[in-house]
């Protein structure tokens, strides 16, 4: 039987689904661009009218900003000051994320415990911490630390741990002159250890004798670490190599930077498009591309070309450096890469091999330092010395605040994730005779982790952004340092845009990492 089609009429343009879809995509794109351009123009004309001029000179201008803690307490320029603030923010965020994850997991599991006391402790912790505003908690920790006894002249000496109203100081292990070459030994040791462990396992499978793979691997790693401890200067030849690379890069013509970026952008776009086409290929042949698909392909290709062109434009911009030179962006980038290799060369230097230089650290791979209280300056004020790890009161307050706060939420997420694994999984694991610790690790946690991961990523983002509350206790994070710069220079918009760029970049990196693991954890289904 054949079906009669009533009439073959040309579809008018305004009823054609394909045309409408394309129109919508392009209209949205244009609208977004128009809104941004309008906003930028309005802002710029308003600023001109009110006689405010914005620029980026403050980045390289000498600055009077004094920073209470960080890699450089009296930075020579705006960009250096912001870098110190940025490092301080990252210090809180990264260590906070690690500790909050561990603490949150423990408390989350504790809340599921059938042990009444453990269970109640977890409940009280979670309910207290998550129901008090974070800012209040940060003030609390600050007040608590400031309430500790003052340092006096009697306290002068070395300590494993010391608490005072200047913060907490304790003994710590730091990387030292030979750290990077030693790390090569350790990494090679781990690789060899894995290989040995696999060999031992095969031996066990073949002969049935115990292989002790773990013990052998551990012994190998220790052996490499110990040998490396003394032998690290054999990598000294890397110093001139990296120096040579550094000089080579410094001598390159600056135009190479935009060329490399442009090639990378276009190659990246081409690769994406190729993979996209590949993903539409089925055993039956090339799949039908939807309008949406074509839009994506064109958009990516267009973006690649725009980025390539922008690379040439932007790399020509001139920037005044701290020393007063006018350098183009391309030259600055080239300089940065050369400096990196210079630093790499320096870290393989054997100059201070096992010699103790007065006032500096000894030239080994790692150095153990106790904390110290010393008298500083002509006024002989008792203070923590340079040695050991010192946590200032603001750091302690913001770090403890965001970490404990986030841990409470992570605990609930972990609890929910574990409860979301069907009960049958536990029963099946028990039925085959697995111990509790075994099935938690092999069956329950891997499945719970899959559920936990997306909300966990949200908590990481929250923690990262909440570090900006450090401003309230005068912690020298990027926001506090930026505020000082705004007060000194009046350049609010540029500084705020640096903040925004920093937090946006950091958050996107966290998201990317979490998404990567999320994809890897996906269950395989048909």
């Amino acid at each position, binding site marked *: 039987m054949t079906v009669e089609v009533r009439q073959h009429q040309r579809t008018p343009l305004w009823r054609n689904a394909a045309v409408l879809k394309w129109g919508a995509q392009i209209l949205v794109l244009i609208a977004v661009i128009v809104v941004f351009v309008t906003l930028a123009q309005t802002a710029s004309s308003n600023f001109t009218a009110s006689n405010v001029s914005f620029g980026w000179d403050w980045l390289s201008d000498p600055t009077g900003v004094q920073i209470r803690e960080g890699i450089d307490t009296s930075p020579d320029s705006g960009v250096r000051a912001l870098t110190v603030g940025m490092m301080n923010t990252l210090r809180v965020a990264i260590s906070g994320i690690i500790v909050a994850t561990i603490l949150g997991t423990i408390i989350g599991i504790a809340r599921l415990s059938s042990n009444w006391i453990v269970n109640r402790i977890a409940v009280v912790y979670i309910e207290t911490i998550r129901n008090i505003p974070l800012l209040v908690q940060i003030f609390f920790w600050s007040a608590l630390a400031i309430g500790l006894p003052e340092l006096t002249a009697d306290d002068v000496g070395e300590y494993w741990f010391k608490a005072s109203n200047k913060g907490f100081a304790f003994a710590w292990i730091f990387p030292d002159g030979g750290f990077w070459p030693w790390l090569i030994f350790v990494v090679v040791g781990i690789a060899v250890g894995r290989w040995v462990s696999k060999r031992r396992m095969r031996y066990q*499978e073949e002969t049935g004798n115990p292989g002790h793979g773990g013990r052998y691997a551990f012994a190998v790693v220790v052996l490499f670490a110990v040998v490396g401890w003394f032998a690290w200067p054999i990598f000294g030849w890397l110093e001139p190599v990296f120096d040579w690379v550094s000089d080579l890069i410094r001598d390159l013509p600056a135009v190479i930077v935009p060329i490399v970026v442009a090639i990378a952008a276009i190659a990246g776009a081409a690769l994406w498009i190729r993979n996209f086409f590949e993903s539409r290929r089925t055993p039956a042949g090339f799949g039908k591309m939807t309008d949406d698909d074509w839009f994506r392909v064109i958009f990516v290709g267009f973006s690649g070309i725009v980025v390539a062109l922008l690379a040439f434009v932007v790399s020509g911009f001139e920037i005044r450096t701290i020393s007063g030179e006018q350098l183009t962006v391309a030259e600055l980038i080239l300089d940065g890469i050369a400096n990196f290799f210079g630093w790499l060369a320096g870290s393989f230097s054997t100059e201070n091999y096992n010699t103790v230089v007065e006032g500096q650290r000894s030239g080994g791979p790692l150095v153990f330092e106790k904390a110290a209280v010393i008298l500083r300056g002509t006024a002989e004020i008792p203070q923590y010395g340079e040695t050991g790890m010192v946590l200032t009161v603001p750091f302690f307050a913001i770090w403890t605040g965001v970490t404990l706060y986030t841990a409470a939420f992570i605990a609930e997420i972990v609890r929910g994730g574990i409860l979301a694994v*069907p009960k049958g999984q536990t029963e099946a694991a*028990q039925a*085959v*005779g*697995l111990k509790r610790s075994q099935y938690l690790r092999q069956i329950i946690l891997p499945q719970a982790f899959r559920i936990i991961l997306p909300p966990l990523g949200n908590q990481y983002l929250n923690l990262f952004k909440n570090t900006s509350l450090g401003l309230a206790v005068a912690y020298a994070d990027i926001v506090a340092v930026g505020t000082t710069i705004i007060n000194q220079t009046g350049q609010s918009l540029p500084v705020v845009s640096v903040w925004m760029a920093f937090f946006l970049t950091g958050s996107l990196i966290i998201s990317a990492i979490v998404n990567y693991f999320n994809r890897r954890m996906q269950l395989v289904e048909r």
Partner: protein
Amino acid sequence: MDNEFSDQSAPDTDAAAGGQAASRTLGDPIVVTEDVKKWFGDFQALKGVTATVREREVVVVIGPSGSGKSTYIRCINRLEAHQEGTIIVDGIELTNDIKNIEKIRSEVGMVFQQFNLFPHLTVMDNITLAPQWVRKQPKDEAENYAMELLERVGIPEQADKYPGQLSGGQQQRVAIARSLAMKPKIMLFDEPTSALDPEMIKEVLDVMKELALGGMTMMVVTHEMGFAREVADRVMFFDYGTIVEEGTPEHFFTNPQHDRTKLFLSQIL
């Protein structure tokens, strides 16, 4: 009667036999339960169950839903803890001693209605996990035996797939292989075919029949009366937390004594 599988020809004088089970020799008692009682809150699920299962015996447990039949076999490997009475499995009494519970669980295999395969592990890893962690078998040995089992249940080609990629019948057969990998002395089946399409029920029942013929001690909660009639040595009928009637399939299906049993059979047959 189908005599195709009757390769074990030792006569059975001890237990009254039904179906083809006549060809199996029953051994010593392996599961002994005495006056087992179990409450869920106010509700008493088991009201004193006394029964003995002997080596190589196949016991089918039937009964209406909520009668306590699942609870009973779940008590035997301590997925539910009984509150009164004694359960002795392979000479070990089930108490709060964790060591005993783990020992018994590694000797008793269990197959669930909902398969409960580990979805994040391949079929092969599902099967070899427990032998490696509990029996401390080397990986090679565990995998070789797993392949053997997969061939026995008829799906060796699925070894590297994930449970989500298999059909229900295939999943249940993997679950049986997973239990068998621990070389259990007893297999418990908790409604193994209730979640399956009719077409897949047969493939699972066939595997279970093979097992029974191989001399495995089995306790099976099921509604498959055909299976009970064909394979069981003994049928237990549960209602309101007690064994109302038990006997050979022949006795049970042709000459039930108890009114409740008659009513139940008239509704399902």
